């Protein structure tokens, strides 16, 4: 009786494993994405429907500050499991590229995407951009007195009332790296010291910055357009300023699609990248709460989404920011109090 039970159990296990193997035999692509799940999941589901290729995704969490999947690609470097890295900003992609973890792929879908949003060697391609904006609470700040520049972070007028997400994580890293590229390291260090002296509250993420501004805990803070758009959609008492439009410009940060070196399913991966870089996906992300700005010309957008061409953007070259951040990271760790 016992033997029969054991044989049954073994048979069941074999059947389950066989079923799992059959399931895996259908075409599939594995994508690691730091784009917020609420926006990326519907896009990936649509790709599944149109291509017949099953998508297995790993999404990043707010807790890991959108760097968990990048870390996983590093940890899996000897035997990559991911095919595509869909990053919500280009800096981590550049960091992976510097570690030799990405493969070059020039997608035909990206021909009319402006060159400043693409890696010259094809290791990543940008699409659907966000901007780094100021979000202020309209109960705490009058429209005419709203901050309008990154330099307002060091203005004594806002002492103890402004917020900045930790520059070690997320898009604030990109923002600081861009400032270093524009101003040079000494000037940026002086600026960061000024931020600290001005009592700017260091928060853990853009989402938290948005929540603290919306609740009135902070008068204003830097965040990204998707977070700002969400607060506006929820009718929170907030308004948005695109900073430095008469100065250095606003930082525009595209999503980035990249092919992982040694990807287990390269053909399916290229198809997914082609799809992500399509006008169709840009239109969809523009119409979502993310309100992301298309980089293809003439993609129809809703009224709440600004066209990239109407924004004076910061003159930064993303492919060089990886080196910049490597240089300033030790200082940033010290500045933010983690070492």
């Amino acid at each position, binding site marked *: 009786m016992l033997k029969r039970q054991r044989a049954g159990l073994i048979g069941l296990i074999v059947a389950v494993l066989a079923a799992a193997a059959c399931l895996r035999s259908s075409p599939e692509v*594995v*994508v*690691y994405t730091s784009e*917020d*799940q*609420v*926006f990326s999941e519907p896009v990936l589901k649509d790709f599944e429907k149109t291509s017949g290729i099953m*998508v*297995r*995704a790993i*999404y*990043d*969490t*707010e*807790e*890991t*500050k*959108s*760097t*968990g999947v*990048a*870390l*996983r690609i*590093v*940890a*899996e470097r*000897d*035997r990559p*499991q*991911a095919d595509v890295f869909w990053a919500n900003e280009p800096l981590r992609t550049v*960091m*992976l590229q510097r*570690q030799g973890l990405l493969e070059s792929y020039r997608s035909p879908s990206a021909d009319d995407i402006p060159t400043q949003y693409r890696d010259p060697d094809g290791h990543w391609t940008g699409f659907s951009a966000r901007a780094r904006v100021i979000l202020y609470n309209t109960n705490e700040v009058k429209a005419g007195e709203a901050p309008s520049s990154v330099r307002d972070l060091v203005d004594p007028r806002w002492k103890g009332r402004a917020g900045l997400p*930790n520059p*070690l*994580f997320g898009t604030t890293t990109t923002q600081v790296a861009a400032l270093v590229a524009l101003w040079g390291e000494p000037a940026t260090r002086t600026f960061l010291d000024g931020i600290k002296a001005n009592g700017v*509250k*260091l928060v*853990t*993420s853009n989402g*938290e910055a948005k*929540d603290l501004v919306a*609740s*009135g*805990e902070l008068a204003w803070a830097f965040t990204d357009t*998707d*977070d700002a758009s*969400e607060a506006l959609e*929820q009718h929170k008492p907030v308004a948005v300023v695109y900073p430095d439009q008469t100065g250095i410009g606003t930082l525009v940060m595209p999503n980035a699609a990249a092919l992982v070196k040694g990807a287990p399913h390269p053909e399916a991966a290229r198809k997914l990248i082609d799809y992500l870089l399509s006008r169709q996906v840009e239109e969809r992300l523009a119409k979502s*709460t*993310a309100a992301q700005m298309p980089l293809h010309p003439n993609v129809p957008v809703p009224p709440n989404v600004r066209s990239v061409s109407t924004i004076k953007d910061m003159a930064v070259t993303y492919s060089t920011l990886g080196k910049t951040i490597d240089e300033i*990271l*030790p200082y*940033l*760790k*010290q500045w*933010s*109090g*983690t*070492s």
Partner: protein
Amino acid sequence: MEWYQLSTRRSSRWRPTPWLAGSLLVVLIAGALPLAWLTIVALGDIASSGAGLISSRTAVLFGNTVRLGIVVAVLVGVLGTTFGVLSTKTDLPGRRVLLALLTFPLFLPPYILALGWFTVLGRHGLVAVVGGAAAGLWASDMFFGLGGAVLVLTIAYTPIAMHLVRIALRSIDPTIEESARLRFRWPRVLWRIDLPLVAPAIGLGMLVTFILVVGEFGVPAYLRYPVFSGAVFTEFAASLNIRAAVVVSIPLMLLVLAGLGAERCWLRTPAQFLGRVRLTPLVAPLGAWRLPAALGGWAYAAVTVVVPLAGLEREAGGAASYLAALRGAASSIVVSVWTAAVAATIVLAAALMVSYLVERTGSTRRNTLDTALLLLFAAPGTVLGVSLILLWNRPGLTGIYTSVVILLIAYVAHYTPVAVRAVGVALQSVAPAVEQAARLAGVPWITMIRRILVPSLAPALAGVWGLTFVLCLRDLDLAMTVHPPGVETLPIRIYTLMANSSSSVTAELALLMVALTLAVMLVGGAAVAVARRVSAWS
């Protein structure tokens, strides 16, 4: 088979070694092997990675971490013991409901609790609404900093100490208390008999809390209280530097060793006494203190549990919205429940064997094993996760790494050490003489475990299974690092949706997680109760 029949077996069948060694091997392969390997690899970079550790800022972070860990551990010890005793040993009105209520914070990741408290103590929170802007400002200033971190983490981890104390109290032989009652009144029996006997459980609760607090990053970061775990997280997240992160986490491990040493000195005196003859614990009447104790207990529960839950409920939408959230998270719920249940079962089986090995062996070997196991638990979830990736993501093993099995391995590696200690606390209440008698009677060792130890420890084992189940169910750091593509547990789904999803969806998912955990625990509790009655009847 009846007892007298067991006595006819030969004593040569007393062979514990394969079972004990096998179980220990499972735990070591699951966790210690990958961690040891990763640490050896990382130590190659200690000169460059460790240089940054020597700074005045590091000292400040370390000091903050120690302060937070000690304050929370002490508070958790006091509160957990108080509520453990009140809910187990007294006639406090509504103690079962109170117990369930006080367990709620354990069902939620601490970060979500912190968000709930922000709705109360934020500059425009409930305090400001009730007490005015100045009160709101004061509350916000108190909340963002050490005070808020202590508040949130104490509430989050008090249930662990409370349940460990309960497990230990339920393992006490009532006849000892009855003997003491012949001479002393109840307060003295509790103070002089029960508390010394459950001291190892209190110590374990404080130690586990200390380990969890010094490894916690989300809550201190949210409340702007800089701690050392931030340095580890920074190496991972900002630098994508795995080796540096492992090196930077070494001081945290040393801190855990210091905590372990303190616990071993003061609170881990093995208390062995005669095996129990009855399972039902004695209850101490509170008398005139019944009402004040009830008011105190319920007031604490109202403030620490109901307030943040009400905050989440206020954010959540209506029934249709809950249904939508439930539909979207159905597969995550299924994965969460079954992986946590399977992992808790494996952990319990391994913990029973390994705790036997720890508790029934010489003190030197016992201390070595105990230390190694607790270091396994103390390793930050991300560090353990990365070490598992490096071990299992290789030719021939990819099938395991890319399946849900890797989640089970991760849970077993991380949570078995706590279960070993918890089972060990209960095991101390069973006198080795009982086992010796079984051995002399010729009972095979595994039969002794099955027929003597397991029934004796049944309430404690059920409690440990429940605690492990909850810890696995709410795990985020580890699961996030290793979960296979296309498979999400509920905490992962909640956290991935937190960014840019409406706050109502995350509040609904958080409340669903509370409800789900509660439902499984209730079903489990009912099953245990039925099994107990059937067993008593037969």
